[in-house]
């Protein structure tokens, strides 16, 4: 399991992996927003947490379809399917590796983008914290989409369409927790705890669903 984790991590960090591309895409999406809405700093600081979250959501989707596809191309997916460990556990490990490779860089890059968006320190901290807790959920949901994509000749875009509606709750609670940290009357903890609960929930549902899909797509 550790070997699998390290292997996937190495693959995602080295050339051809999606880690850097994901961060670049994240920055590009966020950088494009001021061109669309205008360089009004007050407005940007108000919509900042939402923009950072949407950017993170989109870039988390970017590398998803490759999660199992590369393993299928070089044949290691068949080996993974044949081994004795429960498949859901293997998928969970793969999700973790994928998150460490693709999700964590987004979280680390988010404070910088928060500065660009003229967000306050508290808002930046809250957004980073919610991203840290929320992006694993995106990976777990995405794993189901990625497993489905294995069966498709050209999966990429369809996976995003299938996964995005399911990711809406994560976005809602992530953004509302970030806002709650800044705006006084709303408490921070309830939406944050719900976000944690959603992540835990998908940590169970995602790998099981993905394992089921992988077993069924195997020829």
């Amino acid at each position, binding site marked *: 399991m550790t070997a699998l984790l390290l292997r996937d991590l190495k693959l995602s960090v080295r050339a051809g992996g999606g880690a850097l591309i994901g961060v670049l895409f994240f920055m590009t999406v966020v950088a494009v927003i001021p061109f669309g809405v205008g360089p009004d700093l007050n407005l940007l600081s108000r919509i900042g947490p939402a923009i950072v979250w949407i950017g993170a959501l989109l870039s988390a989707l970017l590398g998803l379809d490759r999660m199992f596809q590369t393993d299928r191309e070089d044949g290691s997916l068949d080996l993974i399917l044949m081994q004795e460990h429960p498949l859901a556990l293997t998928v969970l490990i793969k999700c973790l590796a994928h998150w460490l490779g693709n999700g964590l860089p987004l979280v680390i890059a988010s404070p910088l983008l928060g500065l660009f968006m003229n967000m306050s320190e508290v808002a930046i901290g809250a957004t980073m914290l919610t991203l840290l807790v929320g992006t694993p959920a995106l990976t777990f949901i995405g794993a189901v989409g990625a497993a489905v994509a294995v*069966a498709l000749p050209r999966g990429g875009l369809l996976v995003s369409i*299938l996964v995005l*509606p399911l990711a809406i709750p994560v976005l809602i609670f992530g953004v509302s927790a970030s806002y709650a940290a800044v705006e006084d009357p709303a408490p921070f903890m309830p939406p944050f705890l719900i976000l944690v609960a959603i992540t835990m929930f998908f940590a169970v549902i995602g790998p099981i669903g993905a394992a089921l*899909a992988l077993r069924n797509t195997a020829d």
Partner: protein
Amino acid sequence: MPESLAITKISDLANPTRFLGLAARILPWMAGITAILFAIGLYLTFSSEGDYQQGMTVRIMYVHVPAAWLSMMCYSVMAMSAIGTLVWRHPLADVSHKTAAPLGAAFTLIALATGSLWGKPMWGTWWVWDARLTSVFVLFLMYLGLIALNRAMDDPGKAARVSAVLILVGFVNIPIIKFSVDWWNTLHQPASVIRLDGPTIDKEFLWPLLIMAVAFTLLFFTLHIAAMRNEIWRRRVSAQRRMAARMAGHAPVKTSAKEA
């Protein structure tokens, strides 16, 4: 035991020919009853007086509300079929959830469109990001995604199993989406949320509504069974075409073998 009897009944239906026979027998009846109910329901709809506040537009409700109910019922039917596909490998379940997806999308679209038409005179806007509108819209997107997924794969068996997984994951998700969207709206626009609760329903409205709801439900099942029948025939035709192509491919090989 009645339970095991029900199970054997359902597994009897796994034979497509038996299903086709049953479909042929009950479809005319269902279509007839649906037509009669629609006639009664529409007559009641148009003969009833309008609401004192909403006037004529209240009649949109008789289409809008049943369609919205059905959009959710259809997803439940799909989820049950998905379980049938994954657990029992029931061949009809594959066909069932594949053909239900476009129907569900259609009913959801009707609900959205009529709701929008109703919203314009009543709320003064075509669309509000109200909790219920948003979650129905997400449901619509999920239907379209499932249809696209089914179309993207050549092998019907594999497509059915993969989309069954996705249907089930989506089914678990629908309550979460619903709940989270509710929550999101109550946080951000507590006072101004316009609800779709409608008027407190009077008997005058209730009866036509119930009849229309039953009519819509029957319409759904009629269309669903008809669509399943068409899908089975379509698969048979394509299987026979493949077989014919295989025969055509084999014929020259045989002759060449004889020559040798």
